[in-house]
């Protein structure tokens, strides 16, 4: 039997208004491979409170901004960023 993993586990970070929507600022999700950023967002939108997340929020993968097409790898840290309001 092969031991090839069929899922990928990533860490999701939520901030500001999005953390309030989901009631958490950090959670782990498991996705079927191949998984992309958009799949993680879709999963989050299915969580209680997650329906108010936009379909295409600003996202950063391992501290760099990414598009919804970006593939996810085990151990990735995906941050979902509300509209920025520093300054």
């Amino acid at each position, binding site marked *: 039997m092969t031991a090839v993993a069929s899922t990928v586990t990533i860490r999701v*970070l939520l*901030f*500001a*208004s*999005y953390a*309030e*929507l989901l009631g958490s600022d950090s959670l782990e999700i498991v996705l079927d491979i191949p998984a992309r950023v958009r799949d993680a967002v879709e999963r989050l939108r299915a969580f209680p409170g997650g329906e*108010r*997340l*936009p*379909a*295409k*929020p*600003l*996202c*950063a993968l391992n*501290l760099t*901004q*990414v*598009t*919804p097409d970006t593939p996810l790898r085990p151990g990735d840290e995906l*941050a979902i*960023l*509300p*509209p*920025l*309001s*520093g*300054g």
Partner: protein
Amino acid sequence: MYLTADPIDLRSLLAQVQSPRHGGIASFLGAVRDHQAGRSVIRLEYSAYQPMAEAECARIVREAEAQWDCAVALKHRIGTLHIGDVAVAIIAASAHRDEAFAACRYVIEEVKRRVPIWKREVFADGKVEWVGSGEGRKRGSGELGSSEDGVEVAGSSPEKSVK
């Protein structure tokens, strides 16, 4: 470190960029204002994605220093700030004033556009709203902010509590 939970020490920020070569020094301070769109604000609460915010601030400072032959000092506060508190401070020093003003302006605009920092306004009537999220206009329905193509988005609010 570009982010700090403590009050910003302007004297030490100035010392970072002063040099015998620098004859023009420009600064920008963003302070907490007591009103927003006709409503009375009593404080702001800042939070950040700290490792990414530090990296982005460093990139912005490097860009400004490369473009204008200047030295730039930058600090942004996080945590709870009260009316009049300095939330962000930028000091740019160059041989002449034109470069210093240009670098200072560039840095504040890019900080607002690119650095993952968020603030919520606490109003005198007890309401609390995240700036730029569309709260108040879309309360109870709709999506809280969206980036159509995955690139930077500025806050959707036409005015900010810090100028």
